[in-house]
């Protein structure tokens, strides 16, 4: 690892101030960033640790929405998000117990790994990402592989998820990494169904709008039968071809619908 200084702010304001230094970078739970630093793939001169900021902790529920602090760990979401059981289960399926005790919701969304689970939950739920500066709708937030609408030094302080009538997340686990080879999150709301897909596309998480339209008209696995997702733009690698991933999208979406019945 290259050398760096570490700063440990205790408020969002202090962290924002520390991040005005252009050689500084945020450190969430570190479960992606620390391995990256070890491989010398990043060389920040200052790391600003966000794990000691009390404002970024806590889970609360009001008016059909669950609000989760950006610094809340996956394990705490798994235990504490009982108002949105599918989201809690998704968090409980990330990585392993030790990783879940450090990795955070905000860190995952800020990193936007194309195979991460949380982006699918946020996009399918139409979540709102609250930063130190503004609120960003999930539809505007995810902008490509490891790309988000966040500006430099902008911190994910909290995320609010509208709680759906029903939801299911189906993850086809890549056997070696345990990341999602493909993951499909289906969320059914009074005004329609949202379907988000992770792990599959070169551009990262995306909505499968044809499936949303079909399921909004007729919420059944049969409604998906005539659909197929094109392989174009899908990731093809040693773990699965683009065609295979495209095929999995439909299979997992159908499983999600059956799971919700």
């Amino acid at each position, binding site marked *: 690892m290259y*050398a760096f200084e*570490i700063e*440990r702010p205790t408020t969002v304001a202090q962290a924002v101030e520390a991040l005005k230094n252009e050689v500084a970078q945020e450190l969430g739970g*570190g479960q992606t960033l620390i*391995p990256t630093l070890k491989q010398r793939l990043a060389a920040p001169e200052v790391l600003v*640790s966000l794990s000691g900021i009390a404002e970024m902790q806590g889970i609360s529920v009001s008016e059909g929405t669950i609000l989760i602090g950006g610094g809340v760990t996956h394990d705490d979401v798994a235990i504490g998000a009982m108002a949105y059981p599918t989201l809690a289960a998704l968090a409980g399926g990330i990585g392993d*117990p030790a990783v879940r005790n*450090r990795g955070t919701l905000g860190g995952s969304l800020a990193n936007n790994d194309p195979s991460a689970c949380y982006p699918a939950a946020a996009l399918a739920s139409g979540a709102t990402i609250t930063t130190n500066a503004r609120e960003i709708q999930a539809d505007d937030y995810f902008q490509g592989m490891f790309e988000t609408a966040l500006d430099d030094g902008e911190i994910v302080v909290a995320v609010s998820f509208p709680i759906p009538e029903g939801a299911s997340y189906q993850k086809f686990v890549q056997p070696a990494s*345990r990341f999602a080879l493909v993951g499909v999150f289906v969320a059914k709301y009074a005004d329609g169904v949202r379907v988000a897909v992770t792990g599959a596309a070169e551009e990262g998480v995306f909505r499968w709008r044809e499936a949303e339209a079909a399921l909004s008209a007729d919420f059944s696995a049969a409604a998906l039968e005539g659909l197929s997702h094109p392989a174009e733009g899908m990731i093809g690698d040693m773990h699965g071809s683009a065609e295979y991933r495209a095929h999995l999208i439909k299979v997992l979406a159908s499983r999600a619908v059956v799971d919700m019945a």
Partner: protein
Amino acid sequence: MAKVSMSVNGKPAEAEVEGRLLLSHFLRDNLGLTGTHIGCDTSQCGTCVVHVDGKVVKSCTMFAAEAEGKEVTTIEGMANPDGSLSKIQAAFQTHHGLQCGFCTPGMVMSTVALLKQNPDPSETEIRDYLEGNICRCTGYHNIVKAIQSAAAS
């Protein structure tokens, strides 16, 4: 450099550390607690698992500076006060839940955390919880038996 003070196995530990110093290196090099092993250094293998405020973490994937004010417990803190093996350690010995023993400290630390949250885990739950702990000898079968025995006793 950053000042850090924490409690390790109930004793205060203080140091001035580089930002990049990992908790695993702090425990081994600064404190001489070499029971915490470093197997892969890529966050895969779990031989470096310790408890921070009662929760399992991979100490190779956390900076020492971030343990400020925390309670850290390592395998050296697992024995009974009289120095005899704890129930879980004894179960690993009885059922030979190890081959070379390199993964054992991490396995024991994970088991302690598992049984605290689920005192009667099924075999599936045990294997699921140990997902982040790799045994390079593939001694999993006896490890699972040891954990089942510790849970039952």
